[in-house]
């Protein structure tokens, strides 16, 4: 792995949520951009001009606000290829054939881990093989000019999807090239995408990126930042997602970010997802207000099922469509899509575009439906609040009011936790499972301080399921829930009658 940016005094202050001072930030940028040759291509003045010259329908911040104003639910796929040409073709296909409202660039996993030498090797092998051997686009290796060509090839806003705890160079290059959105955050990605990096380093890395967005903001360019609250994508209950949304959002706002999207993986339970979207929006705004941030726009995005998918295109198609239905009814501002290839491998551009059109159709069909006033929905929404507030309040208390410090301490104490995390700094003792009515609940809270009455609700419903399916109450329930959605439908809903 490449060395992290040099940790000397000029570039490293004690951890806090406070905005990085101008001068320190300039030093940090200089060091950062020097880490790979393409870093030198970043010129903030040129970048600002570039963004100002983009039509507003290619600026994600404007597009998200407009979607919110018009109550539209936008679609956005993922996708990245290992060579420039393949990747440009993919972006064009997603734009034209998929009607994607937001066009992505997923980076490859070497880039995510700042292994740019390996990425270079991957590019060469991909060219040789005539197919992509990388699982995404090596943004850093190709640099600013190429990024700019990609943005020019489409007629939509472009977003970087980089699933990394180390976003500093990728973010600089993409933003400079005219990408107007970046998905990633210090808490979410550090807990879910890396093994050895500490939460503190992850937070610091994203403070840099958020500070960069604020720099553009100060120069009159509104960029979109976004938080991946889907975390490990594996049965993450809304409350745990939202806790990280709130905390990452407060960290970003402290650096000066004004457009901050919040993402959550779908639970695939209509009522729980609708409640989660409403609760997420309210809770984030609530805590922002408490911390004195009154002008942060926080649209909410749902993601198609993030856990394991079935090996049947027909089953997958139904999950894709339902993913659109859920997002529309939940009133999400956008939905991030998958394809019928999900269980197998990275989809072809065509399969990816089909997933987009399925989703778009599903949104159209359900665009007028809302659940406000449905008793079960109102109950669930209140429940989520009762789960989130005690955790967030505890974190703030542990940090003596500082979100960054509180977060680091809370992870150490297990007060903050993420299920199925690969990170050594995360307890990953909390275990979720699906209950008898299809809601995601918590079977073991680990050391997360959920109130007793809340945990009693979870346990009661999960015990019902355990009993019905004859699974011992405990981790087995969590494991069977990991598999559930990937099981053949014949097993999930038999066409036979018990005799």
């Amino acid at each position, binding site marked *: 792995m490449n060395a992290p940016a040099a940790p000397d005094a000029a570039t490293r202050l004690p951890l806090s949520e406070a905005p990085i001072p101008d001068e320190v930030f300039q030093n940090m940028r200089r060091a950062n951009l020097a880490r790979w040759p393409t870093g030198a291509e970043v010129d903030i003045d040129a970048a600002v001009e570039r963004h100002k010259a983009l039509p507003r329908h290619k600026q994600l911040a404007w597009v998200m606000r407009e979607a919110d104003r018009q109550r539209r639910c936008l679609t956005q796929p993922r996708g990245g290829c*290992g060579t420039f040409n393949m990747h440009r073709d993919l972006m064009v296909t997603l734009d034209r054939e998929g009607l994607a409202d937001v066009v992505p660039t997923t980076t*490859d*996993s*070497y880039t*995510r*881990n700042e*292994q740019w030498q*390996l990425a270079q*090797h*991957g590019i060469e*092998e991909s060219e040789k093989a005539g*197919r*992509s*051997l*990388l*699982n995404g686009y090596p943004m850093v290796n190709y640099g600013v000019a190429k990024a700019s060509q990609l943005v020019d090839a489409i007629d939509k806003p472009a977003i970087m999807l980089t*699933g990394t705890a180390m976003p500093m160079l990728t973010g600089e290059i993409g933003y400079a090239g005219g990408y107007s959105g970046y998905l990633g955050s210090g808490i979410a990605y550090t807990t*879910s*995408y*890396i*093994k*050895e990096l500490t939460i503190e380093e992850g937070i610091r890395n994203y403070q840099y990126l958020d500070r960069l967005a604020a720099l553009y903001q100060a120069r009159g360019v509104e960029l979109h930042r976004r938080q991946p609250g889907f975390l*490990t994508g*594996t049965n993450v209950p809304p409350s745990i997602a939202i806790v990280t949304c709130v905390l990452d959002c407060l960290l970003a706002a402290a650096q000066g970010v004004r457009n901050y999207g919040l993402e959550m993986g779908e639970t695939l339970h209509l009522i729980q997802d609708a409640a989660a979207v409403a609760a997420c929006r309210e809770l984030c705004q609530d805590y922002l207000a408490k911390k004195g941030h009154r002008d942060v726009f926080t649209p909410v995005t749902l993601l198609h099922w993030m856990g*394991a998918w079935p*090996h049947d295109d027909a089953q997958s198609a139904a999950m894709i469509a339902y993913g659109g239905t859920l997002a529309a009814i939940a009133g999400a501002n956008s939905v991030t899509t998958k394809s019928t*290839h999900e*269980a*197998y*491998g*990275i*989809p*072809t551009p065509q*399969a990816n575009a089909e997933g987009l059109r399925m989703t778009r159709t599903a949104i159209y069909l359900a665009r007028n439906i809302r659940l406000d006033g449905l008793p079960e929905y109102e109950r669930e929404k209140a429940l989520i609040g009762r789960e989130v507030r005690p955790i967030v309040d505890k974190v703030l208390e542990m940090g003596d009011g500082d979100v960054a410090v509180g977060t680091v301490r809370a992870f150490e104490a297990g007060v903050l936790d993420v299920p*199925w*995390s*690969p990170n*050594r700094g995360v307890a990953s003792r909390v275990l979720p499972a699906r209950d008898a009515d299809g809601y995601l609940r918590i079977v073991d809270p680990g050391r997360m301080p959920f109130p007793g009455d809340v945990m009693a609700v979870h346990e009661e419903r999960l015990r019902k399921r355990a009993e019905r399916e004859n699974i011992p109450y405990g*981790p087995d329930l969590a*494991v069977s829930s*990991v598999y559930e959605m*990937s099981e053949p439908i014949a097993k999930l809903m038999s066409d036979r009658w018990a005799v």
Partner: protein
Amino acid sequence: MAANQRTLVTGVIGSDTHIVGNRILSMALEKSGYKVVSLGALTPAGDFVKAAIETAADAILVSSLYGQGELDCRGFRDLCVEAGLDHILLYVGGNLIVGKHPWPAVEKIFLDMGFDRAAPPGTRVETVIEWLHEDFATRDRDLRRALD
């Protein structure tokens, strides 16, 4: 059991963060009686070999989900041979290459690399346990024959 308990090394190779299936697999293998040395996500190829030597492991189970396994796994068997692990059982499993491809083509790539078995996407732990059972039994039989 304890006396001749087999040792397995598991982990997710390369820059791959997909830990869920690997963790469930490791838990299941432990439950079914193996000693499991679990290296977790984002594990360099060399770390597998080092761990196998240190624990005198009988098999290495490499997970690769994120598609770049085709790059990460090249030369894995050679690494083992160089380290003196000439006959260690090598499995690999997951979403082994980028994209959706007919399984036989993918399997061939990895068997050619020197893996003894390759598991297609979505393989269940029961299958892996069966494979290990079979393969260790065959090895025992071969060993007994060799000693006869």
